[in-house]
Each structure stands twice: as C-alpha cells, then as structure tokens.
C-alpha cells in the first residue's frame, strides 16, 4: 500500500458528498479500490449499508435498523473535486440520491409553507 492510498482514505472516507449544485448527497461511506496494477480508487459508496458494514455485529444491526442498508455506487470518474467536501460532476437525481422523494418528502411537501425558509 502506498502512502498516497492511505492519504486518500483519510481525505475521502466519511467526508460530505455534494452534487454539482451543492446539494448534499450523503457521506463517503466506503471506498472501492482496484488492486490490479497498483491500488486505484474505482468508486465511492454512499449509503448506510456500506458504512455499517465496517461495524461489529451488534452495532451493525443497530445502525441498519435505525438508518437502513441502502448502498449507491458512484464511479470515481464522477468525482470532480476532493477537498473538505467531495464534489460530484453530476446531479444527485441521476444517482437517486436527491431528497425530493421518499416518505420524509411526502410528509413535508403536503404541509402548508413547505417552500418557505
């Protein structure tokens, strides 16, 4: 393992992911690394299924019961900038990561004034 790879893990893992419009998409919950021909980041995984995979059994069960087990794979070619946040070149919607769907959205969108700050 090169130092470069370790550095990437420190700079990538658990960081905030935002899409091209700066909409939050979740965290870097795991990293897919290709070991053929030297370690190379192939994709990042977003979703509690990936993050909870790193936990011991009971904690994994607890985490998945609370926050689900979804996993979304984002190819590395889609990552635009790596800094404090990880910025994608695409739109959250393309990966199904936008929050304008699901039961939370169904609840708030029915209430009066949901477009107001």
């Amino acid at each position: 393992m090169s130092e470069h790879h370790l550095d990437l893990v420190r700079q990538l893992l658990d960081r905030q992911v935002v899409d091209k419009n700066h909409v939050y998409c979740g965290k870097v919950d795991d990293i897919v690394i290709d070991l053929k021909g030297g370690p190379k980041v192939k994709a990042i995984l977003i979703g509690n299924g990936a993050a909870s995979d790193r936990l011991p059994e009971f904690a994994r069960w607890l985490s998945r019961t609370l926050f689900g087990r979804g996993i979304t794979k984002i190819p590395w070619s889609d990552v635009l900038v790596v800094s404090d946040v990880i910025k994608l070149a695409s739109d959250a919607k393309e990966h199904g990561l936008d929050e304008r769907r699901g039961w939370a959205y169904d609840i708030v969108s029915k209430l009066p004034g949901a477009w107001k700050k």
Partner: protein
Amino acid sequence: MKSFLEIFLGILTAMGGFVEIGELVFSVNAGVKFRYSLLWVEVLGTIGIIVFSEMSGRISAVTQQPVFSYIRTRAGYGAGLMTLLAANSVSLLTCTAEIGGLALLLKLAFGGNYFLLAALVLIGLLAAVWFLSFQAIERIFGLLGLFLLIFVIAALNLGPSWGEAASGLIPSLPKVETTSDYWLYGYFVVALMSSIMLPYEVYFYASGAIEDGWNATMINANRMIILVGFPLGSLLSVALMFVGASYFQPQMIEPQLPGTAALAAAAVFGKWGLIYAIAGMFFAFGGAAIENALTGAYNLSQFLGWNWGKYRTPKDAPRFHVTWMLMFVVAALIVMTGVDPVEVVEYSIIFAVVILPLTYLPILLAAADEDYMGTFKNGWLAKTLGWLYFAIICIAALAAIPLLIITHGGKG
C-alpha cells in the same frame, strides 16, 4: 464586526436563553438545601459553558463545518454513531422534560387537563418551528425569556445575606448533620454543573452559527456575545438559588414542581410577579424544547450527510425537518405516558453529565487542530481552560451515576 445593535441583541438573546428547566429545578433546590454554599458551582459551570461555546462558535465561523461532520471524519463511523446515539437520547430526554414543564406551567396558569395541555404544547412547538425562521425563533424565545429577570428583582427584594453568598463563592464543605448530606451536596454539585453545561447547548450553538451564516469576521462578536451574555444569563440562575435560600428555605418548602418558583415572585410583587415569572419560564422552557429538537435533527443530518438547516426549505431538507418533528412528537408521547416531568429533568441532567466528555472532547480537539482551524486554533488560554474543564467534567461524569444511586435520585 457586526453592528452594535446585532451584538446587543445577541447578548440579550444569549442571556434570556441561558436558563431552562434543569436550572429551575436544581438552582432553586440547591438554595433550599444548601443556601448559598453551591454558588461556586454556578461560577464554575458558567465559565465552562463560556469556554466550550466560544470554541464551538469559532469552529463554525472558521470552518463552516458542523460538529457532527467533524466527529464523523475524525472519530470514524462507529465511534461517531455511539456519540450520536448518546447525544440524541439526552436531547430527547431534555426535550421531554421541557414539554412536561410547559404543560405544568399551563396547568398552573390556566388549569385544565395535563395531557390535553401537553398535546397543545406539542402543536404549538411544531407550528412555531415550522412557520418561524431560525432568526425569529432565536430572538422571540431568547428575548421573552428575559421575563425571568423578575427573579433577579425578587431575589434582591427578599434581602439575600450577602456575606453568606460571598463565602459561597469559595468551594467548601457545608455544615450538615449527616454523611448522607455530603453525598447530597456532591449530587447537587454535579447536577447543577450539568444543568449549566448541557451538551445540547454547544451543539445548538455551533449549528446555529452556521444557520446565521457566520464567517471568520464573527469571531470577536462571538466572544463578546458569550463573554457578556452568558454571565448575565447565569445571574438568572443565581437569582433562583437566592430565592431558594431566602424565600423557600425559611418556610421549609422544597419546591418539587418547576412552577413553584413563581410563588416567590408572587410573594414579592403579587399577581404581576406571578405572571412575569410564568411567562419567563414559558419562553425559557419553550426555547429549550425547540433547541433540543433542532439539535437532534442537526446531529443526525450532519452525521449522515443529509441536507440540513432551517435555512433550507422543508422541501429541500425533508429528512431534517421530519427529524425535529419526530423529536417533538416522541418527547410529547413520553410526557403523555404520565411520567413525572421532574424525574425526567433529574435523569436528563444526570445522563447529560455522563456524556459530557464525549461532547466536549471532539470540540476541544477540533478547536486545537491547526490543519482545521489555521491561525484561529486555540490559544494558550482556551487550551489550558479547555483541558482543565475536560478533567473536571470527566470526574463529574464518573461521579454522576454513583451519586444518583447513593442519594436515591437527590432525595437524600
């Protein structure tokens, strides 16, 4: 530097938002049981909350990164998850205590069924957070909490024994009759400090700074607001202790319900004293209930990377908005099981102190981190005080549960 008016309003808001139900129960009863001898804890706790709030405000202003985001990148998912669950459980418990307190206040003021009043409180809180902007919530509840100043005036009118109060500024063992009273004294030291340094306060302060769009130019205003606003706010808490010592103790009254403290204001100023006191408590508890519900939503969203904040519309941050609603609903449901709100206050305060080290360590590390803070990292004063307080809260955290058991939940 922000305008003078904004800093002035910030100070008043910090002052009015300082007291919540925990201080109301523990400060008054500390005065009843130990007169002025726990005054030093008020000072100790106030300096502690100043130290950590200053750090958390500075972190937000410099990095624009919320606390739970930092906790997760530095501590990892597993340790972060434990911190999140602990912090949110205590916030939920505190929110429950405030809602129970609000229902009791309404019952005291207007009469009626406690469970219906709790439901009414729930609807009111949901509507307030949904319809008001973050800035409006901060100002309304912070400023109207200043009705509590009636307790300062009442305390002065009741003629505190200043000499005794002055000696209470120095930590000393009280003159008590039995050993169990020493344990009770220890319990009050821990509980009173915890009620002043509750973890949600710094989480909320840090996220609130981002809601308000702070940047590095706000660092000095942040310091001024905290350094002036919090000591002034702690005067409210001190006044409650004085009222306990000079009004309730001579009459051998141990106010169990938080609303009972209002009777002292009524004794001095009659009907209007009572109204001011109840109004002050109402906005103080209401503000704290809102801050705890929002804190739960901030923490969870920042940990999982959701869109968060009142500065985003509900349609843009639906999970965040549903989370604070759920905090209110679950807290109100707990109240409606008929659990004694005062007991919830005691447990929330004691469990809060147990997780205090977990709350303050990440803030201390983040504020001292040069990679993260650059030239705005902790100076020698913040560093020294930070670690000193970290040691103090670790001792308090270790002592909290044994003291809770030995004193049978503060009943001696």
